């Protein structure tokens, strides 16, 4: 049984571990290669910018390769590892239970609680392995072992929190999708709390309740504090105990939170293909939009803390301009920099929705549909259209929230500007949609991974090229190189048109394969 869970988790563990080790090692080695060419002054200026602080956490130890690497990649990797662990945990618990495979295992002497505990241990160990890999990458790049160990422990702890949250959510909800949604939402709320704690001095204590805040407080390579890691350990233990405890005394196949099993009035949407596509997109869209809106409301609310900072530090604008970040000098530049992140979210949403279609196919849920007079291309186009429209709604929700936050503190950001900035990332979302559809046709088991590549891979590529001055040819391949800093700059229409064209090509190629290949299940 434990062996089955290990088998199902090992590939993902290996990929995430390699990614963590590779990213940290790469950034650390590159930093050394620069040999201080970045300039301590420009680094400090960059790091003191509230926008950057909000995104990456308080900069400490930027003068060392390890400290710089942790500051630059720590949050991104921690979010990645946490979400991966949460999704893996819900997949191996609630997902397996939903598919009826727990029934078979529980036919023996094994009790549900023991089974859940074993799966949890497997994912906890996977998170630990990933943490070790992240630390190993740093050590191999020649950074001090102590700092690397602190960072690795923080990374592992974040993954463990994700794993425990995933298992807990899997006990609460009877469906994997809602369980995954809850676990990821709690994790991202933790990220928001960390951001609030970094942006609002009065709420600094919030950092002690979230793995991301604790990772920052442990200050790898600067202070190497043990206390935050200890608190992180306590947090992991608490959530894990709660998760296993809530597995006791419930029926297999049911959740603690009893969703209603009956509904007398059928949904009126469910009478046609487009209605079905809207029905299945509605709730995920609401969840993603709520998350994105909360994040960008906060970004908007923090806008004045930056304008105040600018007023108090007139020298900063010059420094930032010299460092090539002139745009950060205005509210518009600040939100534009953060809307770049929204593009990643849009892409992830689009890819996740196409992945849901691929998942439905694997689970056999599309078989009845495709036995009706429904051409697969018609379903793919209907679904893609609805997902595309949902992506626009998601972007607009984030833009409106940023505007609302900025308006609340009187930061001087127009609604039109906010919406334009948010919608500017749409081409990246569509690119991900196209890539995901291509994968649906050619590699249906890798839809999510392929689908998020233009967004996540492109973002990382841009960050790396900009930090280390790689040649422009490399930069060109990142979709983000073709996005303008809207609303600080005018919209890059040519770039957008190019990306949409690539997206359409990818989608068309995917659909062609999709209608020709065998249906899986």
């Amino acid at each position, binding site marked *: 049984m434990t062996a089955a869970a290990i088998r199902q988790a090992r590939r993902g563990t290996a990929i995430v571990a390699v990614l963590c080790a590779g990213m940290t090692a790469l950034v650390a080695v590159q930093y050394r290669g620069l040999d201080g060419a970045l300039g301590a002054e420009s680094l400090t200026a960059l790091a003191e910018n509230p926008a950057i602080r909000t995104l990456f956490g308080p900069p400490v130890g930027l003068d060392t390769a390890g400290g710089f690497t942790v500051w630059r990649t720590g949050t991104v990797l921690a979010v990645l590892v946490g979400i991966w662990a949460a999704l893996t945990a819900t997949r191996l618990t609630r997902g397996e239970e939903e598919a009826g495979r727990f029934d078979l295992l529980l036919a023996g002497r094994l009790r549900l609680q023991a089974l859940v505990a074993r799966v949890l241990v497997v994912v906890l160990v996977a998170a630990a392995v990933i943490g070790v890999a992240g630390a190993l990458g740093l050590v191999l790049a020649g950074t001090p072992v102590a700092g690397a160990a602190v960072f690795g422990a923080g990374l592992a702890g974040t993954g463990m929190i994700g794993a425990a949250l995933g298992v807990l959510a899997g006990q609460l909800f009877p469906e994997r999708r809602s369980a995954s949604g809850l676990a990821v939402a709690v994790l991202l709320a933790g990220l928001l709390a960390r951001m609030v704690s970094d942006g609002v001095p009065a709420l600094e204590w919030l950092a002690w309740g979230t793995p991301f805040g604790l990772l920052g407080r442990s200050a790898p390579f600067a202070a190497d504090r043990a206390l935050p890691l200890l608190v992180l350990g306590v947090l992991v233990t608490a959530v894990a105990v709660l998760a296993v405890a809530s597995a006791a005394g419930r029926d297999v196949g049911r959740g603690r939170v009893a969703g209603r*099993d009956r509904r007398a009035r059928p949904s009126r949407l469910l009478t046609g293909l487009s209605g079905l596509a809207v029905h299945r997109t509605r709730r995920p869209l609401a969840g993603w939009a709520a998350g994105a809106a909360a994040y960008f409301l906060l970004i908007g609310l923090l806008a004045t803390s930056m304008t105040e900072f600018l007023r108090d530090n007139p020298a900063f604008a010059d420094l930032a301009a010299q460092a090539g970040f002139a745009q950060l000098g205005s509210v518009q530049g600040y939100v534009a920099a953060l809307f770049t992140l929204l593009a990643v979210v849009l892409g992830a949403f689009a890819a996740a929705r196409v992945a849901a279609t691929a998942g439905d196919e694997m689970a056999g849920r599309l078989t009845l549909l495709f*036995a009706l007079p*429904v051409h697969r291309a018609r379903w793919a186009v209907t679904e893609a259209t609805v997902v595309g429209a949902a992506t626009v709604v998601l972007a607009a929700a984030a833009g409106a929230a940023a505007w609302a936050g900025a308006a609340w503190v009187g930061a001087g950001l127009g609604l039109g500007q906010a919406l334009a900035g948010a919608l500017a990332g749409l081409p990246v979302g569509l690119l991900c949609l196209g890539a995901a559809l291509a994968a649906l046709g050619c590699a249906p088991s890798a839809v999510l991974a392929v689908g998020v590549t233009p967004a996540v891979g492109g973002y990382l590529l841009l960050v790396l090229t900009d930090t280390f001055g790689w040649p422009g040819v490399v930069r060109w391949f990142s979709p983000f190189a073709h996005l303008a800093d809207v609303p600080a700059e005018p919209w890059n229409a040519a770039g957008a048109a190019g990306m949409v064209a690539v997206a359409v090509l990818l989608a068309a190629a995917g659909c062609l394969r999709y209608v020709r290949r065998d249906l899986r299940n």
Partner: protein
Amino acid sequence: MSATSPSVPALRMEGLSKRFGTTEAVADLSLAVPPGEVFGFLGPNGAGKSTTIRMLLGLLRPNTGTAWIFDVPASDVQRAHRHLAYVPADVALWPSLTGRECLDLLAGVGPGTDPAYRDELLERFALDPDRRARTYSTGNRQKVALVAAFATRAPLLVLDEPTSGLDPLMEREFRACIAEAARRGQTVFLSSHQLAEVEATCSRVGILRSGRLVEVAGLADLRRLHRAEVVVDLAAPATGLQRLADLPGVADLRWSSPVRLELSLTGPPGPVLRALGDADVARLEVREPSLEEIFLDYYGQAPA
């Protein structure tokens, strides 16, 4: 229902084959089912029944060969599927939708449903349609697909082991529905493991083994295949029973002890029962052989 000429077969396959890697799931399968026939599609596990049906529905692409539904190529699903309704072996529904929502969806997207008949079917199959699919058992999910399929009144029903999750009561209802469909002139293509079910409902059967069609026969010929294993326990040894071996339909007479005999019986059991009447029979057991046993008997174990 579509207007189709009686000379056009409801379904036709020619040289259909499908490989999965090195497994040859279906090999060179040719078959035609005339409209109005109830056709049983038999075969042991892994024979390729589901694969054949999934090719028929355009869910799998055949490596070679073509299939037609009322002369429409199976790959043209938009047209071909206007004439058929399908029940898969393993029905998966969206867990958060209620049974009624699934039925509404299938009816809304499908080629047309008789709502009054659907409500009647819901009653007959004792399905509570307001429950969410995640609370349904295997049999209940199968019922949703069966109700949806029968309610379409499509001229062709393609059913892949539709009763594997049904209890005997529901199984009886299912047989009644098949009979009604046959009376209405619908064609039924029924894949099954249950010889009794096939015998009760089908007029012709095809037997698949290792991906090849080894027999296509009418029901009368099927009875020839149908042997019963008879086990007789005697209260006291009886000598006169040796002549059982000479009775018509009896084969393979074995004495496992002086008071226990076993034989295979084809055809009516009357003569055997009369012969046993003289002996002191303590217990009589008549067991129908499994489909597999018949297969092994008739076609040997050599790969087809």
